[in-house]
């Protein structure tokens, strides 16, 4: 298993070399396009993409503002969406009547392709950050909401009865039994919900904005600058991976009570 990393990087390198060979004009005789500049036009060139990223981060250093905006939108969308989802999930799971009444509305709201709300949010909140945050919130809310709902419903009845016998008040049950149980479900959905907050921010920017990485991609696309579009995609992917790793780290810290298979050490 030690060689997994080697293989992973090898595969990446092979893909990059393949891309470079196929797309760079003049390296191979054209066999799919009439003109050997067409491949570069459609697929971009890895060296130019790398150059673009280098310029963004080092030479011009002008991406930080956009990246900051996108990340801020992501974090706000995630925080607001998760808080609302947690509150809504706890409330509906513990109030059967409200849950029964609202059930069809929640199903409808969840089935709706919510990306389509972006134009409405642009009208309501303008082209600034708020409309992107709103879009992200609608995406994150349902993921967290359903997981918390499930988490509260699946609290072990024995653990609950035990806490009641130990004289826990309703508030203490919520704080010490329902919430921790729901949290484990929230964390299992955290990877998805952080990813969706990011999607909400970028898609929102792409549909209309004056800053952010989505805006950069939109601009480049307008001038058929595929290399910059590719560079934007690479940067977004890298940051999505970084966010995911961060979530994984937080999860490991907070979820250490959860049993893991095979904790023995080989000597």
């Amino acid at each position, binding site marked *: 298993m030690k060689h997994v990393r080697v293989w992973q990087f090898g595969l990446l390198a092979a893909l990059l070399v393949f891309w470079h060979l196929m797309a760079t004009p003049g390296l191979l005789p054209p066999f799919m396009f009439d003109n050997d500049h067409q491949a570069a036009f459609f697929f971009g060139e890895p060296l130019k993409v790398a150059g673009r990223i280098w310029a963004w981060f080092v030479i011009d250093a002008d991406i930080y503002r956009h990246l900051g905006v996108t990340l801020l939108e992501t974090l706000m969308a995630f925080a607001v969406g998760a808080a609302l989802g947690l509150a809504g999930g706890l409330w509906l799971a513990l109030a059967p009547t409200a849950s029964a009444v609202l059930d069809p509305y929640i199903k409808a709201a969840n089935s709706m392709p919510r990306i389509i709300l972006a134009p409405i949010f642009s009208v309501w909140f303008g082209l600034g950050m708020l409309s992107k945050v709103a879009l992200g919130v609608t995406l994150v809310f349902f993921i967290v909401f359903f997981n918390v709902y499930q988490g509260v419903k699946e609290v072990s009845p024995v653990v609950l009865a035990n806490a009641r016998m130990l004289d826990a008040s309703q508030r203490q049950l919520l704080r010490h039994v329902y919430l921790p149980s729901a*949290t484990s479900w929230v964390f299992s959905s955290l990877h998805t919900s952080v990813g969706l907050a990011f999607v909400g921010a970028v898609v929102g920017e792409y549909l209309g904005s004056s800053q952010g990485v989505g805006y950069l991609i939109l601009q480049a696309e307008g001038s058929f600058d595929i290399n910059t579009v590719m560079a934007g995609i690479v940067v977004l992917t890298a940051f999505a991976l970084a966010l995911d790793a961060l979530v994984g780290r937080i999860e490991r810290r907070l979820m250490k009570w959860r*049993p893991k298979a095979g904790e023995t050490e080989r000597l």
Partner: protein
Amino acid sequence: MSVDERLPSDRGVLAAGRASVRAPALALALAGVSCTFVSKDDPGQRYTAVRDVSLTVGAGEFVSVVGPTGCGKSTLLNVGAGLLQPSTGTVQVFGQPLQGINRRAGYIFQTESLMPWRTALANVMAGLEFRGVAPADARAQAEGWLKRVGLGGFGDRYPHQLSGGMRKRVSLAQTLALDPDIILMDEPFSALDIQTRQLMENEVLALWAGDERRAAPGSARSPSGGASGASGGLTSRKAVLFITHDLDEAIAMSDRVVVLSAGPASRPIGEFAIDLARPRDVAEVRTAPRFIELHNAIWAVLREEVLKGYAQQLKAA
């Protein structure tokens, strides 16, 4: 001694039989309790788990309830705990009618009841915390209780890192830390292997008896109750209502054994005073002639019910 202690099995007479000879205060008294469950999917379908049960536990008395599987033993315990409202009948705790959760009782559950997100120590602290004990104080008390159940060094482990027996000990510490006057146990050791089980049984008996020494140091009670005084009634030791399907366990641990009939609508059909000397070792006491005598007497009553319960299960399947 050779007289069969079995009381008349008519309902109601059982309830009347005990009070005159028991301690002045009854820790727990169920009178005429019936529990009928209504099926959620089909409201027309009803199931009566227990019917017209009268059961008492004196202060400081160790009472076991035995019966075939599915006879509503746990239902009775939940009624006594206040977790379940009986359809009819009353529950009294130390003379007071029970409303809501029984705050003078601790409950040891059959299955896992520890909060998996809390360490062993935090689990033992939980009840104290809920009652508003200051954290430092609660921690000190919880550490003391973990030591008493033999888990002094395991406070920082999470439940999944402990063995089944250890988890049961943590549960025990968790419940005892609140110093309840009544302990309700629902087949607490049924998931443990036989060796661990006997160890735990002896430990529970020691804790139960030790509590008396701790709580009432100058008590004039003789250490071995003998045939005359298996239940003193003067002590401040805890009352225990112990549910089990294991007759050996019931006899080895209890002052009194109550036999329930097979379900549905089960009710007590026999009651036996266990006059074996204390302190007992649950493994050794099983070879005592009196133990075997009692076992035979109770088994004669229980056997029929077990067979009846089994036949019903077969019919339902």
